[in-house]
């Protein structure tokens, strides 16, 4: 029935009402994303991509149209049901990391588990969080607070937090916006690894360089999808980092 699509948007509209003005942020988007895809959602500011991202992330509900996530219609659910969907099926990665300050990396990662309704002991929470942190290259930094970590490390903590509940899809909103280019490529490397492990990733970005690490680019303008195409010259993060390293050593000699 869902044709194997993990995410299926059918003629989704979103209208905001600010005073007398009606803003049509999204005007009829239909989109299907299959499990295991790595999609970059692109567009200038005001194109409606952030609004679409909020709907995809179950943070917002469409004004009209339907959103099927993993075969279930989530467009009409109430706040608490949406919170449960976010908790179990979606992992968020934000531009500004959004880690809790004065809270260790481990506790940040444990957060979605705490709200998952599973009654886990502190030891179990710790074990799970450390496992995910280790898989993302942060072993040994579990007790660091965000202020003690670099931007790249903070974003890794955020990715670990997104992965802790084994979500169906990871939503990344400008994940490299606050990072330098090298760290950005590293983060893309992590996303590509995760994608190879079968995790579906939807990433909002306005940089074509970054979008080229994805498999598919969806470009939006004025609330509608302008183009939807597969990436032809896909970049590989591991290779790009090696290139940077070689060019740096070339400069040195």
């Amino acid at each position, binding site marked *: 029935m869902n044709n194997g699509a993990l995410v299926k948007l059918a003629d989704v509209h979103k209208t905001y009402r600010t005073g007398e003005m009606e803003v049509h942020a999204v005007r009829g988007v239909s989109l299907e994303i299959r499990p295991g895809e790595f999609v970059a959602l692109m567009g200038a500011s005001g194109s409606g991509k952030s609004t679409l991202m*909020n709907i995809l*992330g179950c*943070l*917002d509900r469409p004004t009209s149209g339907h959103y099927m996530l993993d075969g279930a219609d989530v467009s009409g659910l109430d*706040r*608490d049901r949406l*919170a*449960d969907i*976010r*908790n*179990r099926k979606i992992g*968020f990665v*934000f531009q500004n990391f*959004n*880690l*809790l*300050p004065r809270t260790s990396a481990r506790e940040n990662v444990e*957060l*979605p588990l705490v*709200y*998952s309704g599973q009654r886990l002991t502190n030891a179990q929470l710790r074990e799970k969080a450390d496992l995910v942190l280790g898989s993302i290259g942060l072993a040994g930094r579990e007790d660091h607070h965000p202020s003690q970590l670099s931007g790249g490390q903070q974003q890794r903590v955020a990715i670990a*937090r997104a992965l802790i*509940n084994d979500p169906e899809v990871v939503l990344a909103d400008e994940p490299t916006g606050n990072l330098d280019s090298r760290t950005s490529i590293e983060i893309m490397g992590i996303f590509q690894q995760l994608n190879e492990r079968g995790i579906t990733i939807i990433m909002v970005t306005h940089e074509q360089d970054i979008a080229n690490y994805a498999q598919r680019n969806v470009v939006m303008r004025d609330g509608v999808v302008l183009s939807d195409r597969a990436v032809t010259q896909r970049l590989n993060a591991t290779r790009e980092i090696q290139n940077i390293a070689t060019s740096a050593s070339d400069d040195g000699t």
Partner: protein
Amino acid sequence: MRSVLTALGIIIGVGAVIAMVGIGNGAKAQVETQIASLGQNVILIFSGSTTSSGIRTGWGGAGTLKIEDAEAIRREVPGVIGVSEEVVSTTQVAAGNQNWFTRVYGESADYFDIRQWPLADGAPFTPQDVRSANKVCVIGRTTATQVYGNEDPVGQILRIKEVPFTILGVLTPKGLSTQGVDQDDIVIMPYTSAMKRVLGGTNLRNINVQIGDGRQIEAAQQQIISLLRQRHNIRPGRDDDFTVRNQQEIAEAATETSRVMTVLLGAIAGVSLVVGGIGIMNIMLVSVTERTREIGVRMAVGAHGSDILTQFLIEAVTLSSVGGVIGIICGIGASRVLSIYAHWPTLISISSIAIAFLFSAAVGVFFGFYPARKASALDPIEALRYE
């Protein structure tokens, strides 16, 4: 630091409640011991007031109680274990070259049992002394010190209105009464001697009656009233020419006063607790605003509104409870200091501590609810975008 300042409101509030209620309860307990020192199961009968030519005299003013009335009570009212006829006067007493103005009480030999007032030294006068109107007396500690200094007064002669009385004993000190009268500034002699040799007259100011069983007090009181009305030939419908009070009524009146004081002090202290609560509400509102992003993140990863509500409520209650505990400690300290330096009796009960603690926790819930509610109602998108 900010939390400490916020908690300070609660600390002061709870501390004030504990100290104020402690002072009130202390005063009440003091009144109660003094009432108890009147003796147990005691009924007091005062003579008067009578209306003569439209002028009403106060209690004890008109000589309506006779020695025979007391004897009738002793004889006819069941359950009576002690009766003391009382006359009172103030007069100059002297011994050697010392003299002193004091109160002279005439009583029966039962008086010392009724008032539960043992002697520190010597012996009380006997029923025989009363029958014979012997010139003997016992004196209070204050009178003894004023007249005899460090000398032992027992066996000495005390001149009262130029009549020599032999001092049989010295009473144990009782201290100040509820009205602030020095109860040890006293000379007590047989009422017969007082009437015959000091005051003159045959009227009693009042009669003290002690009942053996506390449950019979009401019945005995009624019997005394009807007996006296009959003896005084008071027709039905006319006012009594005497007044009967039992000790419990006196105690209730006195404790009522101190209870009102306790409630009043507690209410004033309660106001400061409410002010403390408003402080908590203020800081929680600031905290919700400052942590909007955190709330957004928690919601994004799956927190329900109720989870956020609970989190902020727990923070508010923790703040107010910690303040409450510190306040209780401060309050106990403050009332200690007051009782040491101001000599105010204070009494801190477990129940007042428990109530103060529960109240401070309740303040946390009450004033924490609105900010917590506000946090839980935030829109996650807005909250995440908040700078």
